[in-house]
């Protein structure tokens, strides 16, 4: 096994050296959409708690009276769900409410952390008909009812459109890069057809034969992964500075996004190479 891997790496590097320009283009074409997708995912996560990203139903915030006992509150909320089966009622914890306030008003952070601020209980009602929620204003348990602020809805719309544009661009570029990887492997397979034939005739296993080609696409994939991570970190860092300057909270990239970027960058071209090999290896060689 070690010999197969050593052979694959050595021969794969030879293929890469011979086709340095193509490998670099592949790394860039693959890295850019993955970086875009990473920035998009990070923005989505950042905007998630404050913007209406669902885009399906309206979410109406209902602020309850702070003196409402917890037991009484739970019963009242349960009653709402029974009376209005088309509403999805969810309680926003005081911790999450504090986090949302801090996101938009970072200078409230000290007040929130000191525990001096008593936040009223908040519930959110997801419905197709937000006007139907306004009737709750007259109830004694309710302090205030309001649709989500217009900035949230606008942000949600912008975020959805942005996600769609980024998604489409990423998909097109990713599809292009996979196609490029597949075509490259196909051409290399024909260019090295004699070698592949000889290797098979002298008893090389398919792993030994395919290894160099897989390494030759996995390395640009890895480079693309690193490029996309660097691109995402740089872009998010720039956006984060901008948001801080506007008095909003800083953005952080979830580690899962970075792992996903690296994995996607390596696996996609590998998959393209494996499929190409499976489809064309028999036609390209005589054994």
């Amino acid at each position, binding site marked *: 096994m070690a*010999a*197969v891997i050593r*052979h694959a790496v050595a021969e794969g590097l*030879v293929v890469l050296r011979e086709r340095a320009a193509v490998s670099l283009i592949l790394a860039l074409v693959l890295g850019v959409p993955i970086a875009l997708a990473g920035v998009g995912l990070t923005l989505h996560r950042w905007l998630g708690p404050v913007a209406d990203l669902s885009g399906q139903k309206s979410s109406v915030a209902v602020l309850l009276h702070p003196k409402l006992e917890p037991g009484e509150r739970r019963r009242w909320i349960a009653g709402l769900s029974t009376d209005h089966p088309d509403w999805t009622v969810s309680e926003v914890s005081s911790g999450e409410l504090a986090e949302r306030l801090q996101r938009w008003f970072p200078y409230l952070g000290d007040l929130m952390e000191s525990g001096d601020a008593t936040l009223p209980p908040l519930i959110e009602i997801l419905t197709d008909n937000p006007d139907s929620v306004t009737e709750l204003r007259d109830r004694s348990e309710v302090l205030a009812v309001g649709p989500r602020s217009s900035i949230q809805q606008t942000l949600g719309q912008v975020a959805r459109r942005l996600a769609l544009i980024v998604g489409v661009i990423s998909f097109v570029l990713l599809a292009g890069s996979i196609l490029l990887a597949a075509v490259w492997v196909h051409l290399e397979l024909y260019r090295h057809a*004699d*070698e592949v*034939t*000889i*290797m*098979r*005739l*002298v*008893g*090389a*296993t*398919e792993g*030994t034969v395919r290894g160099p080609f897989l390494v030759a696409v996995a390395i640009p994939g890895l480079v693309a992964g690193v490029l996309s991570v660097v691109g995402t970190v740089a872009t998010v860092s720039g956006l984060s500075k901008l948001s801080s300057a506007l008095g909003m909270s800083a953005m952080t990239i979830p580690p899962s996004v970075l792992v996903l970027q690296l994995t996607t960058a390596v696996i996609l071209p590998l998959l393209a190479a494996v499929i190409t090999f499976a489809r064309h290896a028999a036609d390209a060689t*005589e*054994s």
Partner: protein
Amino acid sequence: MIRLRSVSKEYERRTILDALDLQVDAGEFVFLTGPSGAGKTTLLRLLYAAERPTEGEVWVAGRRIDEMGRKRLPLLRRKIGVIFQDFKLLRRKTVLENITFVLRIHGIAPREAHRRAMKVLRRLGLQHRQAAFPDALSGGEQQRVAIARALAYQPRLILADEPTGNLDADLASELLSLLCDINYQGATVLVATHDHAILESIPARTLVLHQGQIHYDGMWPP
């Protein structure tokens, strides 16, 4: 070691081998001869599973190979040393690497592979060309590298397709004595040639192929 049962091979409705029956026992030295187009190369290709017969059964080293799956072929081919008519050397590897590469895919450690490769190169008088690439070698030298590669891992069966085609008389005779040595050590050797001088140089079982059938099976000259 080799058994063919009613083997036929057709290319585009042209019969190359016609219901051929053949048995070669382990340890035998056999010449395969016949005019050009008689089917010598096709028969050898069937034996290392580069081709499948149109009809019939091909058995090598106790295994039926005409039905063998692609995944099991490498193991079979590691038991066979093939000396190809067109050498089939890896152009981007040196003489030494062409041989160590095959030894490495047989699972031999790098140091031992290097030792064995040097030993076989010395035996074929190629040690001074170990760092050369195949394109820099003469036809005879390329032929000897192909032979060295086939012999390096001491296979149980050696199939040689016109192995002396590019060698002068002295080297051809040296190669034949090398193949005889290997045969003496227990390997089965099947040499395809149309050179009658070679057939006469060693008394051995000779198969004469003509129009896809074995016309003569016995010692040469008849």
